[in-house]
């Protein structure tokens, strides 16, 4: 074996640079070869524009995800508390969360394809700063794919994994946003440079040939990405945006389809309440720190003043549907029981399954005009799948907290 000339190298301050210089002479075959990727679309002008779009969708998903998190895990710190009005707010933020997540799927696929050749850069990193940056890019891609996949799977109730979706999706989102911030900092200069030029002129070399007629131009590739975003959005957004309902051919739930025209997340059978909910001995109890504990039959509830509220059921999975609910104000029940001001209410359901069997109402929500124990929807008694004999319905609140088959309101001070 012929002796290779020893490169005059010593492991200096930067071990990555030392290794990189040794690797330079050993370029692997295939995609690692120079010129292996010839498409003109693997380009920083295209990458920068798709990256900018992804920054918008990812930060929007993060912000709306936090809103949803704090709606379900209230901070109760003044201005950070979830407001009781407008009643449609959560419908908009959560609908946006899911729609932006879905729109991110084509954006991410196009973006990753644009930068795919960079995966085969040789040597993989030239110094320790580059190695750090590229490791975080790996984490960014992996976490982005993970968040979009797990979120999408959750919208259809597909859980192939062992972890708790909500908790894991929440913590992974912080990790994802962290590595995204690092990536934005690393690419800031390059992105600004690329965005300053029209997309067809981002070549570093003027002699680069113009696109032959008919091949996909960079502008065409961005157009295709936009068309893909449009296609995935139009076929799903009708799950929350009613005017597009007829187009929602690929949405997992559609307003109008379900008992009394409203989809459900958990049926009476799944909740194990098919017998208890229709039992004539059913009583609603108002208990806890009250002067007069109440036990009310359905007839007692109907004899109280009835109020109407036009409110959406908004599921964290991204669908929503409105209805006109009517029933008794929670506030009236609390007053009748002599509950003190300022307590919070634990709402308990008949359901057997543990998750979301109870929910909490803070003082502000419990005393809002539109917070009802609903008995009817759109003029009919509630379908058992919607929580017959009575369910909680309150403004600006995730669907999982709109407790169905309510049996107890427990006042805590």
């Amino acid at each position: 074996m012929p002796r290779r000339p020893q490169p005059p190298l010593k492991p200096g301050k930067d071990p990555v640079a030392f290794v990189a210089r040794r690797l330079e002479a050993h370029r692997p075959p295939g995609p690692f070869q120079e010129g292996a990727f010839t498409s003109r679309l693997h380009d920083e002008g295209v990458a920068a524009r798709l990256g900018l779009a992804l920054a918008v969708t990812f930060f929007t998903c993060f912000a709306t995800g936090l809103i949803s998190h704090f709606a379900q895990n209230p901070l109760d710190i003044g201005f950070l508390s979830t407001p009781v009005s407008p009643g449609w707010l959560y419908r908009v933020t959560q609908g946006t969360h899911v729609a932006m997540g879905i729109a991110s799927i084509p954006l991410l696929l196009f973006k990753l394809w644009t930068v795919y050749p960079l995966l085969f850069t040789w040597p993989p990193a030239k110094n320790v700063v580059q190695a750090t940056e590229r490791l975080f890019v790996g984490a960014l891609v992996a976490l982005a794919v993970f968040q979009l996949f797990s979120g999408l799977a959750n919208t259809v109730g597909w859980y192939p994994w062992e972890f708790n979706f909500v908790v894991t999706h929440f913590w992974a989102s912080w990790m994802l946003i962290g590595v995204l911030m690092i990536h934005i900092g690393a690419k800031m200069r390059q992105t600004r440079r690329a965005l300053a030029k029209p997309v067809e002129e981002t070549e570093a070399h003027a002699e680069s040939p113009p696109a032959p007629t008919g091949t996909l131009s960079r502008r065409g590739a961005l157009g295709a990405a936009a068309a893909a975003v449009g296609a995935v959005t139009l076929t799903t957004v009708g799950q929350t945006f009613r005017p597009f309902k007829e187009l929602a051919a690929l949405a997992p739930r559609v307003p109008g389809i379900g008992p009394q025209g409203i989809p459900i997340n958990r049926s009476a059978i799944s909740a194990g309440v098919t017998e208890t909910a229709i039992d004539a001995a059913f009583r609603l109890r108002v208990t806890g720190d009250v002067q007069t504990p109440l036990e009310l039959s359905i007839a007692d509830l109907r004899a109280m003043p009835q109020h109407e509220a036009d409110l959406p059921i908004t599921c964290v999975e991204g669908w929503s549907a409105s209805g006109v609910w009517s029933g008794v104000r929670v506030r009236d029940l609390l007053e009748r029981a002599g509950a003190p001001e300022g307590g919070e209410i634990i709402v308990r359901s008949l359901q057997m399954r543990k998750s979301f069997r109870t929910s909490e109402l803070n003082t502000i929500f419990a005393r809002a005009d539109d917070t009802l124990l609903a008995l009817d929807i759109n003029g009919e008694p509630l379908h058992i799948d919607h929580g017959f004999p009575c369910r909680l319905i309150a403004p600006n609140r995730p669907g999982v907290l709109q407790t169905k088959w309510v049996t107890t309101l427990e006042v805590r001070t």
Partner: protein
Amino acid sequence: MNAQDEHLQTHETETPSGPAWWIGLIIGGGVFTFGLIGLMTNSSQTRPGNMVKYVVGGLIAHDALVAPAVVIVAFLLTRLLPAAIRGGIQATLAVCATLVVMSIPVLRGDGRDPNEPSLLPYDYPRNLAIVLAIILVGGIALTLARAARQRRAATAD
């Protein structure tokens, strides 16, 4: 090496530097660490050992399966299709491919439950076929119309 690849090489070998990089690294690193700590301290729910399979699995699924498949298909189309319609067909197929990827969960229908008929109410393979057919017909029509327009422009010159 053509100019395009040389360009790629030059911007890849750029080493991050400057205030934006360091600010991003410090703040982003802090946010990332916060998430990682939250993930690890809630390990009974987040099951990091199981989660990491999906995180790494997603990366491998993209980088080792999806992306090479796209490269191969794009390469074949470049060989098979006349230049005049190549770009339009590639764009049309790319749109279709992303729709298929997005539809995988509804096509599998794992969440379907006879007790909950309002979840996954449609025949999704049929719906996807219709949507893809519309996009294919529309994309091919636009591509042919553009090719014809360019041919007319070329002969008029």
